[in-house]
């Protein structure tokens, strides 16, 4: 199946709930407030402290494959968002929505991951940062 690069931007103001990330890793650091959605193929899923990591290939419209890496919480918190130690395996096709890295590189903070069969992990309006603070 041809994997296309799909990018969707959504402003924070359009979300139904305030973004907890605002109080976490503020403007000085890691992530923007914008959501990015891409489709790719899983290379690895690391279920580990301090943060779980999803690594996946994304093929652009130019045919180039870019390796993306996205993090979420530690397992004890990721579990409450539906993630499990065996949620993903190499080869799984995924649609990943995340907070884009401020650096502009292929990194992100997971908001939601959707498998090809429709199984969802996380929430599109959660986008919780480390600590999931809403302060």
């Amino acid at each position, binding site marked *: 199946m041809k994997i296309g690069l799909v990018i969707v931007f959504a402003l924070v103001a359009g979300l139904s709930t305030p973004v907890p990330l605002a109080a*976490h890793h503020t403007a000085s650091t890691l992530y923007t407030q914008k959501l990015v959605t891409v489709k790719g193929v899983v290379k690895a899923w690391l279920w*580990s402290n*301090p943060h779980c*990591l999803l690594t996946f290939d994304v093929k652009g419209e130019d045919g180039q494959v870019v390796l993306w*890496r996205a993090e979420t919480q530690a397992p*004890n918190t990721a579990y*409450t968002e539906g993630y499990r130690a065996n949620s993903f395996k190499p080869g799984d096709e995924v649609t990943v929505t995340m907070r884009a890295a401020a*650096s502009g590189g292929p990194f992100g903070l997971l908001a939601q991951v959707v498998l090809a069969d429709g199984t969802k992990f996380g929430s599109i309006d959660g986008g919780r940062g480390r600590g999931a*603070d809403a*302060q």
Partner: protein
Amino acid sequence: MRFSSWLGLVGSALIFAQTPLAQSGSTATWPEPVPARRAIAEKDKKPAPRRSLVGMWGAMPGNRQATNQSSGVQLKPNNGKPENQLPYTSYGLELYKSHKPLEGADAVPPAATNDPRVRCEPLGLPRHNHYDLGIQIFQDEYKIAMLYQYDNQWRIIWTDGRPLPKLVDGGGVEINGQYREPRWFGYSVGTWVDDYTLDVQTVGTMPEQRVWLDNTGRPISDQLRIRETFRRLDFDTLEWSETIEDPKVYSRSWQTMKLPLMLQDPRTDVMTRYCSPSEVDAYNKAYGDPVSGK
């Protein structure tokens, strides 16, 4: 089937019923590894037991972030707002500015932090009260034992009437005329104010070079005095308050948290949340350094 065969079957069944495997009759299972109790209706609330904090305690439903406190202590999150500015002494402010935290108003990328937590140094007290909180409490006639989920740490609060040690200039305490060293969790004594309220005081914690107050880099020193109050409001609700006094770092005492906790299923199989140096290294190599531009 012949009658003799039926007798054989029945006999075998009777013999099997006496085996340990058959007699276990247990329907126990492994519950979900995270606390998940729902809110309790007012009409279903039960009175608090007297002089007991025993139980597994977690966040109130829908309020998980309150027990996380990743952006700073609950009552004073480090979000840059004027009402959350702290009463630093000049030394305290100097200490704060030297800290490069991963969270809060002055957060830095992972590759730039000097938070001792990322080297898996113990958080110590009271920072352990301010991070990824999940606790289990056991007690006997002499003491209360608190088990913290993060890094599987524990502390003891003595309730047998012994006095609070005397805090010594330069760190550490004096007990019975003898010097004792600073400890990650200090020296804690508790007194029941009434049948539902425990007042706890702690001194003798680690010096400012070793510990922070919270994830956002707020400082504390070895002259810290911690006052905690545990109020059992009803059978399922515990209110945990904390005030700190640290004249070396803050010009006055201030309250860090007033946290409601809910009693959880005691069978909950709590997930591990260790800080492993090798896992931190792997994370930094795979993600922390690249995302920081290193």
